[in-house]
């Protein structure tokens, strides 16, 4: 599956990473080499094999639906780039 410039630009947009035209061509080259290596997987017969998501085949544990966390908003916001009155500040979204 050949990787095209449009694929890289789409992935970069979905991943929210700014990519310049110069960088895009470099990524197309690097990512193509990686995907060529990955394409070896197509040579493995996996008929009837179930996908393995967790190495111990474990399923997610459930716990009682109880409040266990205390409010630590101030602590957590101490490492934020910009906050005011307990809110995270970002550029204006709604005019």
């Amino acid at each position, binding site marked *: 599956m050949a990787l095209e410039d449009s694929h890289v630009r789409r992935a970069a947009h979905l991943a929210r*990473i700014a990519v310049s035209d110069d960088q895009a061509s470099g990524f197309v080259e690097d990512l193509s*080499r*990686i995907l060529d290596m990955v394409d070896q997987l197509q040579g493995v017969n996996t008929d009837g094999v179930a996908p393995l998501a967790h190495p111990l085949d474990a399923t997610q544990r459930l716990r009682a639906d109880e409040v266990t966390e205390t409010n630590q908003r101030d602590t957590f916001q101490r490492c934020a*780039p910009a906050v005011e009155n307990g809110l995270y500040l970002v550029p204006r979204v709604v005019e």
Partner: protein
Amino acid sequence: MHDKTLTQLAKALGSGELSSRELTEHYLQRIQQSGAILNSFITVTADQALERADAADQARAKGTASLLTGVPLALKDIFCTQGIKTSCGSRMLDNFDAPYDATVVEKLKTAGTVTLGKTNMDEFAMGSSNENSYYGPVKNPWDLTAVPGGSSGGSAAAVAAGLTPAALGTDTGGSIRQPAAFCGITGLKPTYGRVSRYGMIAYASSLDQAGPMARSAEDCAHLLNVMAGHDVRDSTCVARGVPDYAETLNAPLSGLKIGLPIEYFGEGLDPEVEKAVREAVSVYESLGATVRDVSLPHTHYAIPAYYVIAPAEASSNLSRFDGVRFGYRCDDPSDLIDLYKRSRAEGFGDEVQRRILIGTHTLSEGFFDAYYTKAQKVRRLIRQDFLDAFEDVDVLMGPASPTPAFDLGAKKDPVSMYLQDIYTIAVNLAGIPGISVPAGFAGGRPIGLQILGTHFAEAQLLNVAHQFQQTTDWHLQRPDFAEESA
């Protein structure tokens, strides 16, 4: 002092021969003298370390100390530490002061250990040479023109150079075992889920595992005793009792069945590495073990499967770095999308961006089944290879890496770097434990013997490694660097 193992130092502290303050001052002085040459530390926490050392000495005096009370350690800068910067080797987190401690950090604190500082690493643990760090590459103390391996390169170099008796690392595709091999130390990757991942910055959540890096298997056993165990804060951490890993170190090896995977001795393996590994295997034969060839037929597909699964998980995990809640934010964003895109483009290095893009692409509409689902099916086959092999043998042995440490700057193409992890990566896909122990040298650079066991066989791996270290002295060899800077 720095030529002693952690176990020896713990005993010296216990007998009162040494104080934690003396020991901590000694290592801090060594870090100050030669740390800059190796670049193995991102942050040194001298003041906190001395405070902790004094507290440890008081605990000793009061009789409330445990074995590791007062022992200095270094932490890979991937473990969250409250009040101390946690960068993960990235510009993205250069300003990050975590609001809590990782579970393993908390456990080590409770045991009374002293943190000397946070070690350098490949950015977000993505790399095999430690050249992907925002803080610059780390040098290998055995040869300053060589890489220390990665991604736990700072931890490995610091232990090898005698800047700390031990360090914590993490291993997603070989990031404890390969740098341990390159730097001539002992490094254990436990079974997936054996050690809590809470507070360990996630790269690939179904593969990541923390483990000890030290001078000997005995040291690793004492550290794992403290690190392992259930944690309600990590839903993938296994609720299973923790044995005393130090208790079984001296079990005899007669009758041990060793398998040599034929795929681990094929094309691409450096002949001197092969020779050292086969000589190590013959040491085991002299201890009463039997050896046979086994096959892990899907070995060749481990790297391709990994480079779908790990980047896919990374693309999801690293979406939390958005320039809003913590970490780097670009200057003067024009709108919210610009804020996200430029913060991430400027905050992440090249390799991290490559892996996020690969992961985003392979998970995207039209590609998901061909890449991600396929890779997960191959992952099951890879795990089955190991389970089948462990029906016939107790442990597997082979090289940790196809070559000794390569030169700084030698591998510019990402794929050639990825191929370095050929013998370590399948182990993470299968979730089994593995240990690398020093087994010789080629051209003055260390060689690692890798020993693999089935799920939760850490006690056996440590026993098997320890018995080798009772018969050989490769693990006691020191680089000239460690002596000259004494």
